[in-house]
């Protein structure tokens, strides 16, 4: 395992990677702890991974080995119910770029910030010709209430049982304790062009995806 270790000069090390950017323009082998593919911070130690990982979690390890959706691949299709109870299939968005963001749960601070950030930048996404779709394990009634409360103009899909999350290989965080927060940008051909993972800086998902969309 290609791992390098450097100790930053700090009194109290950082636990989570709050400041390091985690843009992944290449295939992501996301870490459950630090949500970063090629570089991560844990307790102030920088880890650079080339392929395998040292964090002991068999389910995570399987996810990293068989990251099911990678950059350049076409993700498996799905059909999930939206906040109005209507079936929505991924194929519905073919012909235009789609931002598919997986988030832990409705009405949690990070997810609310992320949803509101997508909402506030929605015009920019529309201008880029892209659709935004949020997916979590909450049911349709939760999505309906969440979308109504925060006036979300985009689709929220109910992935009950987290089936699609597992199919796409969205990694968990904190040794599997938290559903991961990962965003995919699909181009108009349905091919993944960006995978971005950041659990605790949800607004950055919007910046990174817009940056990519503007270059498509």
């Amino acid at each position: 395992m290609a791992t390098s270790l450097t100790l930053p000069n700090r009194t109290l090390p950082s636990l989570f990677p709050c400041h390091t950017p985690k843009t992944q323009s290449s295939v992501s082998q996301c870490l459950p702890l630090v949500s970063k593919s090629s570089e991560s911070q844990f307790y102030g130690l920088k880890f650079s991974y080339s392929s395998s990982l040292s964090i002991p979690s068999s389910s995570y390890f399987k996810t990293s080995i068989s990251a099911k959706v990678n950059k350049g691949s076409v993700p498996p299709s799905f059909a999930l119910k939206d906040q109005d109870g209507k079936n929505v299939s991924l194929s519905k968005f073919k012909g235009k770029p789609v931002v598919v963001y997986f988030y832990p749960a409705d009405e949690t601070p990070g997810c609310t910030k992320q949803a509101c950030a997508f909402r506030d930048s929605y015009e920019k996404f529309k201008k880029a010709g892209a659709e935004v779709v949020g997916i979590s394990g909450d049911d349709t009634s939760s999505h309906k209430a969440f979308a109504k409360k925060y006036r979300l103009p985009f689709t929220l899909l109910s992935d009950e049982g987290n089936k699609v999350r597992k199919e796409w290989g969205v990694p968990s965080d904190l040794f599997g304790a938290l559903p991961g927060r990962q965003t995919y940008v699909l181009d108009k051909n349905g091919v993944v062009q960006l995978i971005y993972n950041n659990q605790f800086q949800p607004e950055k998902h919007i910046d990174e995806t817009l940056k990519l969309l503007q270059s498509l």
Partner: protein
Amino acid sequence: MSILPQHKYPLRPLTYAPTCPRLCCIARVTCSATTTKPRSSQNPLVIEPRLVTTPDLVTTIPSTGPPLPNDPSLQSTWSHRGWVASGCTTLVISLAKAMMGAADSHVWLEPMLAGYVGYIVADLLSAVYHWGIDNYGDASTPVFGSQIEGFQGHHKWPWIITRRQFANNLYALARNVTITVLPIDILCNDPVVQGFVSICAGCIMFSQQFHAWSHGTKSKLPPLVVALQDAGVLVSRLQHSAHHKPPYNSNYCIVSGVCNEFLDKNKVFEALEMVIFFKLGVRPRSWSEPGAEWTEETDETHPQVTVH
């Protein structure tokens, strides 16, 4: 709603004294639907599951206002003073053992380092305890109920802590320090251990005083206290005032505040809250709009304290 009396404290170094008198005749209003799957806590002593996910949680509305300045509940009793004296005695013994051990072995660095570590750990522990009490449980929670209620009252009337007499403010922590440190005093002669224990337990015991000072006005505080606050040795008025702003989810430390930046920047408590939510289905209070019982009231008898 019942308020459980404090029959005994568990053997641990951390307990925060209620900073407000117990409220009587309290009405509770519970409303709103849940979209989570609440599970009962596996440790009933620590967390009582909350069953709601939307605002307007369990709301306890006190029917009494803040205690008046001469309220007996703010005065020290001889029992309070006794506990503070016993707590201080155990700390002095611990410190003396550390110093004597260091002098005997001519090794001072390790006990001093251990003391410094104790100072940092005390700050961290104060944050963890404060976070737990502020976010989970309520007045009916076993063991912690009265403290949760006390912290709730403190958020509502934060200035009251500055009117509480010294021993009244510290006695509960002093009692726990006595119970915890006395056996260590008797059984342990290691100067490093005693160095850690004396400083850690000492900071914890006096944390309520540091907390009270952080609610004080600069002009009314002793110059030495102001200097220590400004130097970051004690939790500053500015740092702690940030905790008293909605959504009350940061700056939980009340010893020195040295851990606040690390904890807040790294979203440690947010991560813990998410884990608890996903594993136990319990939402912390800070995720919802504060109810009436947590929202700060202005002190009509004194001008609003401006932090400077």
